[in-house]
């Protein structure tokens, strides 16, 4: 896989897609290290501590409805922030994604003559459980009825738990949905089928959600939305998945 151009990134903040207003995202994921140096050591050495996750966004201030300025200006976003990384193309299911249940800590802007008005925003982890790198089960996708996503092969089952993240980007006027993430031991989802995460958001309002998953996770994972109602309203969502 060649070097990736930075042009193919999607940015989701809570229930909003702000890709078109962003031009730079920095992911600062670090682990505090505690010094463990003792007499006799030739070099200062460390043991790993807790992780500290933060995101820094930069782009252009856009005052239109549901764009960067109205979404970020109150400096109080508390929800999932995700960065989907396309591999020299638009992001597709299975591509890497960084997701964090985040708390916004900064929103600033520096208007200047002869330049587009920029904004900057910063987010830190809101939860004691980590976010991190995973895969996109559903890049922003629209549907009008019960839908089962494409299964994603993560290569192997794991046993350390993980987390599922949901962004609801367009809501249904009257239909509601049960949205889950499920796993299986085969690509046809016929053996070892298990529900890994059940979201409380039901497509009736914009928002985002993180669901913790404990224990074993099968190799194959997919999302699923089951409709209650018959209106056929259009719903748009994104689902991401990480394994610890």
């Amino acid at each position, binding site marked *: *896989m*060649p*070097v*990736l*151009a*930075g*042009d193919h*990134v999607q940015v989701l903040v809570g229930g909003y897609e702000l890709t078109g207003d962003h*031009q*730079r*995202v*920095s*992911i*600062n*994921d*670090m*682990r505090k*290290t505690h010094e463990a*140096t*003792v007499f*006799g*050591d*030739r*070099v*200062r*050495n*460390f*043991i*790993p501590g807790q992780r500290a996750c933060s995101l820094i966004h930069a782009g252009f201030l856009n005052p239109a409805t549901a764009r960067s300025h109205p979404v970020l200006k109150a400096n109080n976003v508390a929800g999932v922030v995700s*960065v989907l*990384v396309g*591999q020299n193309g638009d992001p597709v299911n299975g591509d*890497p994604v*960084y997701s964090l249940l985040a708390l916004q800590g900064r929103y600033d802007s520096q208007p200047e003559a002869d330049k587009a008005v920029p904004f900057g925003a910063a987010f830190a982890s809101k939860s004691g459980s*980590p976010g*991190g*790198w995973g895969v996109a089960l559903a890049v922003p996708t629209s549907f009008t009825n019960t839908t089962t996503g494409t299964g994603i092969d993560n290569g192997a089952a794991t046993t350390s738990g993980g987390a599922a993240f949901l962004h609801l980007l367009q809501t249904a006027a009257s239909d509601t949905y049960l949205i889950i993430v499920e796993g299986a031991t085969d690509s046809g989802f016929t053996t070892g089928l298990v529900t890994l995460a059940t979201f409380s958001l039901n497509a009736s309002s914009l928002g985002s959600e993180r669901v913790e998953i404990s224990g074993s996770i099968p190799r194959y994972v997919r999302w699923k939305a089951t409709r209650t109602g018959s209106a056929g309203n259009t719903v748009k969502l994104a689902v991401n998945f990480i394994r*610890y």
Partner: protein
Amino acid sequence: MAISGDHVVVILDDASGSPRTFANGDIISIDLGLMADQHDVTGFGDAVHKYINGQKRAPVTIKGYLTTTATIGTHTVIQPVFKDGKQVTLEVRVGQNAAPTTGDPKYTGEFFVASYSPVFETGGAVKFTAMLTPATGAEPLWGNV
């Protein structure tokens, strides 16, 4: 003889402990810090401050392009070892104006990946910076391939 920085090979353990050689073109720079704490022991009569060396510090900074190549991509290798807090062996081979070969300088040590920070920016390739700190009391060493 000055040597060009173009011929450097970086090898880092993956999450299963297997050494992985990053592909040519994936690593842009690697900063191999090796410095000693210096304690001021200046006394009366000294015309100039003087020091003794204490323990060494050996931070490493790796900068490169984020790649997702199976087994040897930079993201493929570095992100899991960072996430798992795993101790890894780092080896850096410096070729003398050619691909590294027997006798060329080699830097090795045991480290933790303390941070992994990719940056996405329009109009540019996706790059990352990873910071490593020593994991044991044994200092990283310059030796030979």
